């Protein structure tokens, strides 16, 4: 069977505008799901990380259990849990968007939490002691001293996880959310050109994630030049 990339020329607008951006009759959109997931999962991840570092057993054990359980289960399973559970808990079925968003935030927060925990632990103990010595409270110390430094240290792993997250959003298509993958499936039902269509979205995903990794490398170069001197001085003193 010969290849015919005319199918891309005919449908690229639907695939990109509807599937990638989420503008159109179906709602949906890979980016419309990925961006809020990144923000919310990062915030929840900070909470998980602080719980994992807490000296209070009632914070430490639940946070640790959360991380261990989620990391031992496939994402599809978490998506199906929410797909099944939300209608029972809320009483009405929610649109796929909210189910997918909830599942992804809960899943990715476990991974982000571990990255953030490692980042916080990489900040020298002396920094916290110095902050407390100047009279800062726990929250102020975290917000103005520890987290800004921790974020710099964990930036590479963090961006890697964000890239994984963007790829993971393709799983929302399983419950019928109109993302890039679902858009390709929808077009394919009419055109029966799976090779061309799936190869095209593979390239789109690739451009998106590869662009993110290039951006993160540039960001790392920018932030690291300002910081290495300082951390080295602190560590050696």
């Amino acid at each position, binding site marked *: *069977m010969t*290849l015919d990339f005319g199918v891309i020329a005919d449908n690229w607008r639907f695939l990109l505008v509807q599937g990638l951006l989420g503008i159109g009759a179906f709602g949906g959109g890979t980016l419309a799901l990925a961006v809020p997931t990144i923000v919310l999962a990062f915030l929840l991840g900070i909470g998980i990380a602080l719980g994992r570092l807490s000296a209070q057993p009632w914070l430490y054990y639940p946070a640790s259990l959360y991380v261990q*359980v989620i*990391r*031992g*289960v*496939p*994402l*599809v*399973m978490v998506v*199906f*849990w929410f797909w*099944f*559970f939300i209608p*029972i*808990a809320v*009483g009405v079925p929610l649109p796929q968007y909210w189910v997918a968003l909830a599942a992804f935030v809960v899943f990715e927060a476990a991974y982000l939490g*571990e*990255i953030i925990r*490692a980042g916080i632990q990489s900040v020298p103990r002396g920094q916290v002691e110095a902050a407390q010595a100047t009279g800062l409270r726990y929250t102020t110390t975290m917000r103005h001293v520890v987290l800004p430094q921790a974020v710099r240290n964990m930036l590479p*792993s963090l961006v890697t996880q964000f*890239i994984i997250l963007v*790829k*993971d959003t*393709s*799983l929302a*298509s*399983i419950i019928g959310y109109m993302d890039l*993958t679902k858009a*390709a*499936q929808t077009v*394919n039902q009419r055109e029966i*050109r*799976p*090779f*061309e*269509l*799936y*190869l095209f*979205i*593979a390239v789109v*995903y*690739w451009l998106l*994630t*590869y662009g993110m*990794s290039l951006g993160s490398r540039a960001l790392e170069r920018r932030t690291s030049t300002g910081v290495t001197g300082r951390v080295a001085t602190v560590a050696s003193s």
Partner: protein
Amino acid sequence: MPRPFLALAYQFQWSVLWTSPYLGWLLQGVLTTLTLALLGWLLAAALGAVFGAVRTAPSRVLRSLGATYVEFFRNVPLLVWMFLWYFGVPQVLPSPVQDWLNRHNGEFVAAVAALGVYHGARIAEVVRAGIQSIPATQLEAALSTGLTVSQAYRLVLVPIALRLIVPPLTNESLNLLKNSSLALTISVAETTFMTRQIESYTARGFEALTAGTLIYLGLCLGVSAAMARVERRVAIPGLIVRGGGVAH
């Protein structure tokens, strides 16, 4: 009438999990998951070892070949690879091969290929990091004993790297095991697929999902424990800091 709260609205019936045929479905699902993950892992490990080594090779052409493979295959969602291998690739194969695939579990072959090639790219990065952590003098010493470059890689560098990378490799193997669940989208009857099937036959979603979740947790714990033993067995004395920061 006020709606009953959560569990009250739901009648539990755990016995479906050990009634025929549902118990058999679950066991079949686990068996398929294990076979799929094992075959996918073998393919991924082979691809990962070759391309990871190639990425550190002295030849610029070989290095960029390795980089192209890694960057393309790991930056596209596994789900898209599943669809491409299952729906797309047969379209460009000669029809005798298509017929053969249709008669021989084409979806299983596609799932193994997708898992192997995707995780191969990720394992290649682990292998590359392992090789690069070996001091350059090891390569020089190997070459000075008269080995060719490919012999030095095959007999010295890669074996040492494989022993160094057990912790991150464990992590990646667990990812592969969990990701094998995506094969349900191309109707491979693995654990998640069977979980869903039990849910739709019995309407016992809570019980079915609990069973699936516990199965994956158990498998992951089992693999972790087995790999921890392997790690102790193959550790190079003096080279690995136990519990160190290799895996993030």
